[in-house]
């Protein structure tokens, strides 16, 4: 490829900026079955979306669709396993095709800003018109060399009334041109690669050392056996019920040596913590968080605190136990943020202040979540459900689509704010992909409270690779008099 051809491509693409496509009418009206699938996949339980009796008494006077479904309804379908052909009347489709032809065949969404003018109701027939608003110069990114393509879509209902808009940006990039992780230069391995040989066969990678192995004797064996069975057992002296950890041989109060154990509920709070950074021991992933957890039974245990970005650690935060197998015969307890229950009564604007933190929300990522949410958002791009196709396009596995990220962010904010919070805007920018096997933890805080009751929440969702998403959401909360009127 010469300089000329790529600069020619850029000019060709730029020439289309400002053009709009034909109106695209949704295949089906907004409907409850599709909404229900979406809610199931997202773990969205707001009754205003699926429970017609509850919704009838809510602020919408009936069922509505989750606001993050704004652009779900006009998405293309999937026919007999084939992606539908691109509508070449769409300037963005033309741009994508030209980029495909030039080798920029991979695509990731990087930004989605949804503005909600009103909530969609079952029966609404949505039409979208998409305008190409920008094509960037060629950029070198972590994923590869490519172009950012930005579109803006306007959504209207069957009466031609505006219901919302979507500002959307994707990166179209050449697979295999991304920055691979820096590794130490190794001439021996390089020589083998040059000779067409697999260096791993000659120098097998050293297995990762195991964590320091816990040791025990008959005085504590019951504790470690419990962990194997996913039980966190706490010593109880049977004479007066005293709980002791770490275990002792005799009751510190009575010297009785008769004890059994209780199985901890697994709920606790963070009492203290440290974030070890040096020295780094190969058995552990850093940054590592080691906490002192006060169990609700009253004793404390040392544990790793997982699925919490270090800057979100807070003494007193609720935690729940989980487990990790570290050796053939050793299981350790771990603690992660406790899932906050969904708020069934909606917050009032007066309850909220700038700086209020939302409960941390770790979301374990697996193939089922990524595939089911992709399909529930009617996004049939193969990179979200087909591992081989995703790998062929330069990804290590399938990854979460942006409509799901948007849906999960709204679900989490709604679970905190309550079912009657009215969403007006959601802006998300994507970074590190959400791959199966990882965990994304959403964290955020109120960044603005406007006089009209509009609350802005700034948030991020971090996984092991970094921030998957950063963004903000605007919601309107009822004022207190309205809430009192409802009798809540």
């Amino acid at each position, binding site marked *: 490829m010469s300089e000329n051809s790529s600069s020619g491509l850029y000019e060709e693409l730029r020439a289309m900026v400002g053009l709009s496509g034909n109106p695209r009418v949704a295949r089906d009206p907004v409907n409850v079955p599709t909404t229900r699938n979406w809610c199931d996949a997202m773990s969205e339980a707001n009754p205003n979306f699926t429970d017609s009796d509850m919704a009838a008494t809510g602020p919408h006077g009936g069922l509505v669709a989750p606001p993050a479904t704004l652009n779900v309804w006009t998405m293309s379908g999937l026919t007999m396993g084939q992606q539908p052909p691109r509508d070449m009347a769409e300037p963005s489709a033309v741009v994508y095709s030209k980029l495909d032809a030039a080798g920029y065949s991979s695509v990731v969404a990087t930004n989605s800003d949804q503005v909600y003018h009103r909530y969609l109701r079952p029966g609404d027939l949505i039409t979208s018109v998409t305008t190409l608003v920008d094509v960037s110069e060629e950029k070198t990114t972590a994923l590869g060399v490519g172009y950012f393509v930005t579109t803006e879509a306007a959504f209207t209902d069957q009466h031609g009334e505006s219901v919302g808009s979507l500002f959307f940006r994707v990166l179209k990039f050449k697979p295999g041109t991304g920055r691979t992780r820096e590794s130490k230069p190794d001439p021996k391995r390089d020589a083998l690669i040059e000779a067409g040989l697999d260096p791993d066969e000659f120098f097998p990678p050293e297995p990762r050392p195991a964590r*320091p192995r816990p040791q025990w004797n008959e005085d504590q064996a019951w504790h470690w056996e419990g962990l194997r069975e996913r039980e966190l057992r706490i010593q109880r002296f049977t004479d007066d019920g005293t709980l002791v950890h770490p275990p002792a041989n005799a009751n510190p109060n009575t010297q009785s040596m008769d004890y059994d154990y209780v199985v901890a509920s697994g709920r606790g709070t963070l009492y203290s913590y440290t974030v070890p950074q040096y020295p780094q021991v190969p058995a552990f992933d850093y940054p590592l968080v080691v906490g002192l957890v006060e169990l609700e039974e009253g004793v*404390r245990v*040392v544990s790793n605190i997982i699925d919490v970005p270090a800057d979100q650690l807070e003494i007193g935060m609720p935690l729940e136990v989980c487990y990790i197998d570290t050796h053939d015969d050793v299981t350790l307890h771990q603690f992660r943020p406790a899932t906050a229950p969904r708020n069934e009564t909606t917050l009032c604007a007066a309850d909220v202040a700038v700086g209020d933190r939302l409960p941390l929300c770790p979301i374990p990522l697996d193939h089922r979540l990524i595939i089911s949410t992709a399909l529930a958002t009617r996004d049939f791009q193969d990179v979200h459900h087909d591992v081989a196709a995703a790998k062929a396009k330069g990804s290590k596995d399938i990854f979460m689509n942006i409509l799901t990220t948007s849906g999960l962010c709204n679900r989490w904010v709604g679970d905190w704010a309550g079912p009657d919070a009215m969403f007006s805007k959601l802006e998300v920018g994507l970074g590190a992909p959400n791959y199966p096997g990882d965990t994304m933890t959403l964290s955020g805080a109120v960044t603005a409270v406007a006089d009209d009751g509009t609350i802005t929440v700034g948030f991020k969702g971090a996984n092991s690779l970094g921030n998957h998403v950063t963004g903000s959401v605007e919601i309107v909360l009822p004022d207190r008099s309205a809430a009192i009127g409802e009798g809540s």
Partner: protein
Amino acid sequence: MAKFDRKTAIVGIGATEFSKNSGRTPMQLATEACLAACSDAGLDSSKVDGMSVFSSEKNTEIEVARNLGIGELTFFSMINHGGGAPCAVVQQAAMAVHSGVADYVLAYRAFNERSWNRFGSGVQGRHQSPEAFDVSFSWTSPFGLLTPAQWVAMFATRYMHAYGATSEDFGRVAVADRRHAANNPAAFFYEKPITLEDHQNSRFISEPLRLLDCCQESDGGQALLITTMDRAAELNQKPAVIASAAQGVAEDQHMMRSYYRDDITGIPEMGLVARQLWKSTGLGPSDIQTATIYDHFTPLVLPQFEEFGFCERGEGKDFIADGNIEIGGALPINTNGGQLGEAYIHGMNGVAEAVRQVRGTSVNQVDHVTNVLVTAGSGVPTSGLILTTET
């Protein structure tokens, strides 16, 4: 009052140079330090008949005795738990000479904890056995809590949360130590003071602990010679009278990981040492002109002032503010530079500095010194002592 109070003294101090690479064996360092302490006192080393050491000391008293020309030892003891021992080995010596089981007792500590092994590198490779002490690490090591800095950091976070102390408050301890070290030619960080900004810019070792909150890893040896006041009169130096010395283990004590007590912002074993010392000597905080406050990690310096009653609980950060613990302040501490500035010799070099303050020979001499407080390791079973000019 303990029976040995004011009846014994530290009469000789001796040290090697403090470095990151001594270039010789720990046994050589121990021998040199012990000979220097005897020479300082003006005592023929063969007269020594007692040895009091740390259980973590690898240079056994029998080998050191051979090197010193000591034919017979009538007293030899060991104190457990590392940095908690420096005042306790002196207490052992004082009790031994006062009771008459020995005449002259050497207490020493010598190691290459930088060039031979890194003292702060962690217990991940620890010996595995079903013995209780080895088992005790199972509650922390599998989670990656492996180093003294990490163990201490857990206390520091809670202390900050409870009392509003900040990283800057910890940094003020480091600044004081390094200011004092800057005047001390024997200090590793001689002529290298730091600012609070340097402290804040230093990297996290185990959050909230920064690099400059942590003591050094050092090579070196330090020895102390203890005898009775009667014998002290025959020797070279003005005796540093041992007003009293005490040890302490408190309820639900663990080795640097006493995380299971109702409150973990205090150091109750240090409070026990404080109560004994004040009661035994009749002295109080206002009688102390300068102190060696154990400073392996700065966060645990603050609650020591609280345990000794220099200030109220949680007010350590206020007590150390405005240069109060620096030369010219109300209670200059660690005038040798402490373990952050001079060297980390498990607290033994801090006892030697207290001796110099009593003699009036410190490079950062405090005016009108009568009583000097010394504390040992915090977080471990610990000890403390008061040296005085007065019998």
